[in-house]
């Protein structure tokens, strides 16, 4: 026996004294008998009736998760049951995922919500079981024979409350799937469960309001076209103030070579706007023939977290707009779920985009074969290619006031397998970059804890719990390497990580990758730069210093 094996006495003591893994104080009950308790900080406000009306979603009403009666529609059990059956037929993956899990538990401790809360229903295996237990009940014969063994249960209002609680403590980040020996994608189970909940009006306003906005105005924030243009023009003025260079983006210009689409947070929110300034500087630097649409003014796709139909509809607008503007291909900004939707679903959902051309960089001539189907190239990939071909004049010293680490955004890392390009760019635009621990980056990256439409203020407690594993990894490099800047390539990260850092790691600021690119770019005709795009002083570039060696 290995000397490292646990001692029998220790195991015996643990067995006798430690509560059962799933039973806690409910030792005489099944896991599904443990009630859910909604209290301040652990539920999102439900969709407003007008939002549901706007979207044509069912059962618009005023209600709250803390209400005893959730005012479910008549026949809601049949709606769920029929909804599940139709989705099992439509999505073979769902049936496969529900049938193949052997409860090995490899996923259990991989979920950031389980790690941050210790709640067993946040183990992906058990979260999926919340749905699977109802699915099993829909097989009468098996139920009859295996009653009590099959893990099936009746659909009750308490089950719906449990679904609402735990399928909104999953950010669909897919970290669990990396470790599943069967490759079960628990995120898709969550997607289906949320779709079913939406059929009976159990929902989340922070998620549905952006969907409604995007459906109406083209972006999640509900920015109307003229305001969208004014915001970018305002950033153009800022760029001129900082650098002395006037960049000249165009809007809705037919015949441009490239349509640029980015999350609306980059046009409206802090710190996203600094990333937008970085994009604009980059495009000006290389003389890119591009245009920005005020109608497809959103890269993100919250439809993905509501229903497949909404995801499809919101994704389609980008392609319709590309067709209308007669561009050759689409360049996409730093976003998370936009890329998950484009990379994994777009081609079979709205594709093929055969009216577009296979993307070729007009600057380097590189053909992006990986985007042959979607005709959409990720900005990190595009910039990495520019740097590789030495097409950018960069001065990484201009980011010497920042000590960086990189957060792999779940949807870009696990959703499309992009790990190297952002690191390559980062290493070329700054001099101080430190990786977080190996099991918290790349395909094993920890979610920000606020993805998939959970970035609501009222949900702050849960978000801080779910984001703790990520924050803990940042803390590691903060203490070891004095890292003070967390760089990321996702708009939700840029919105939520500043809050997470402020709580767990005060002093760490959050940056978009292309904000650092914008800092480092040496623009033709620029004035002497002493400040970064946030107007913070650059180290070694103070007034009176020479900024070039």
């Amino acid at each position, binding site marked *: 026996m290995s000397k490292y094996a646990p001692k029998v006495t220790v195991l015996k003591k643990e067995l006798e004294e*430690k509560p059962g893994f799933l039973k806690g104080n409910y030792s005489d009950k099944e896991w599904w008998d443990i009630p859910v308790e909604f209290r301040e900080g652990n539920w999102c406000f439900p969709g407003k009736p007008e939002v549901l009306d706007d979207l044509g979603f069912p059962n618009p009403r005023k209600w709250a998760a803390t209400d005893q009666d959730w005012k479910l529609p008549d026949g809601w059990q049949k709606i769920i049951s029929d909804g599940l059956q139709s989705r099992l037929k439509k999505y073979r993956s769902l049936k496969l995922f529900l049938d193949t899990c052997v409860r090995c538990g490899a996923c259990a401790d991989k979920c950031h919500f389980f790690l941050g809360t210790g709640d067993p229903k946040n183990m992906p295996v058990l979260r999926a079981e919340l749905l699977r237990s109802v699915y099993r009940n829909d097989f009468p014969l098996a139920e009859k024979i295996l009653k009590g063994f099959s893990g099936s249960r009746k659909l009750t209002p308490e089950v719906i409350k449990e679904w609402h609680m735990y399928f909104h403590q999953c950010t669909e980040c897919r970290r669990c799937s990396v470790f599943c020996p069967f490759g079960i994608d628990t995120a898709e189970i969550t997607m289906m469960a949320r779709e079913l909940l939406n059929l009976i009006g159990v929902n989340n306003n922070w998620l549905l309001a952006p969907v409604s906005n995007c459906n109406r105005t083209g972006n999640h924030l509900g920015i109307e076209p003229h305001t969208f243009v004014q915001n970018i023009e*305002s950033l153009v003025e800022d760029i001129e103030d900082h650098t002395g260079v006037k960049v000249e983006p165009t809007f809705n210009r037919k015949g441009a070579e490239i349509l640029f689409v980015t999350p609306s947070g980059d046009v409206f*929110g802090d710190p996203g*706007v600094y990333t937008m300034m970085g994009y604009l500087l980059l495009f000006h630097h290389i003389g890119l023939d591009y245009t920005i649409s005020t109608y497809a003014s959103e890269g993100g796709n919250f439809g993905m977290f509501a229903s497949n139909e909404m995801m499809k509809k919101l994704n389609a607008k980008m392609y319709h707009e590309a067709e209308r503007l007669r561009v050759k291909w689409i360049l996409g900004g730093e976003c998370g779920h936009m890329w998950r939707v484009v990379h994994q679903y777009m081609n079979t959902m709205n594709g093929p985009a055969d009216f577009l051309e296979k993307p070729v960089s007009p600057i380097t001539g590189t053909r992006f074969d990986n985007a042959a189907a979607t005709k959409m190239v990720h900005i990190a990939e595009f910039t990495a290619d520019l740097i590789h071909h030495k097409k950018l004049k960069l001065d990484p010293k201009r980011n010497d006031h920042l000590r960086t680490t990189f957060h792999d955004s779940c949807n870009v890392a696990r959703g499309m397998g992009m790990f190297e390009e952002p690191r390559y760019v980062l290493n070329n635009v700054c001099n101080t970059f430190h990786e977080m621990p190996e099991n918290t980056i790349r395909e094993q990256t920890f979610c920000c804890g606020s993805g998939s439409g959970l970035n609501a203020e009222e949900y702050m407690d849960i978000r801080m*719990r779910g984001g703790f594993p990520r924050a803990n990894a940042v803390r590691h490099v903060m203490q070891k390497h004095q890292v003070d800047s967390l760089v990321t390539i996702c708009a939700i990260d840029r919105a939520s990580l500043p809050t997470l850092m*402020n709580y767990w790691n005060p002093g760490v600021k959050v940056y978009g990758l292309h904000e650092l690119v914008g800092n480092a770019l040496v623009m033709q005709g620029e004035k002497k730069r002493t400040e970064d795009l946030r107007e913070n002083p650059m180290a070694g570039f103070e007034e009176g210093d020479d900024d070039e060696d």
Partner: protein
Amino acid sequence: MTTAWGKLIQEHRKEILERWLDRGLSFFSERMDRTTPIGEALSLGLSTLLDGIEENGKAFTAALNDVVRLFAVQNFPPSSSMALFFELTEILRAVVTKLSGKKSLTDMEWNACRTRMEEITLQAFDCYMANREKIYQLKVDESSRRVFMALRRVEA
């Protein structure tokens, strides 16, 4: 350590830390595993607290905030979080009784120990409230950041 009770803690540090950590982990809906990020952070925080428990040094104060911050966003009530600090006296008493036999403390020394524990508990309460208030401030800040450009235009 200069006090009699402080020296006892130092002497039985491993056993006390073990029991204290165990109590902290048991507050979670299932006993939180000590190898999780929370388990590790709690272990580090509590051990730092034990090492500087006699006075409010820099490391002690930072560790107190680290520990309380973990609890301030969890599902259990504030009273549970504060109970962790009350319980240290009892853990100390149990360990001392079990392991030290005659080497226990005088009533005066126990009183001094309890007084310090109460002081720490009150400090922890302040930390807890500060972190809760921070959560509300974060909500405000986040809302402001989200409409940054609109606010900028209003302010211009």
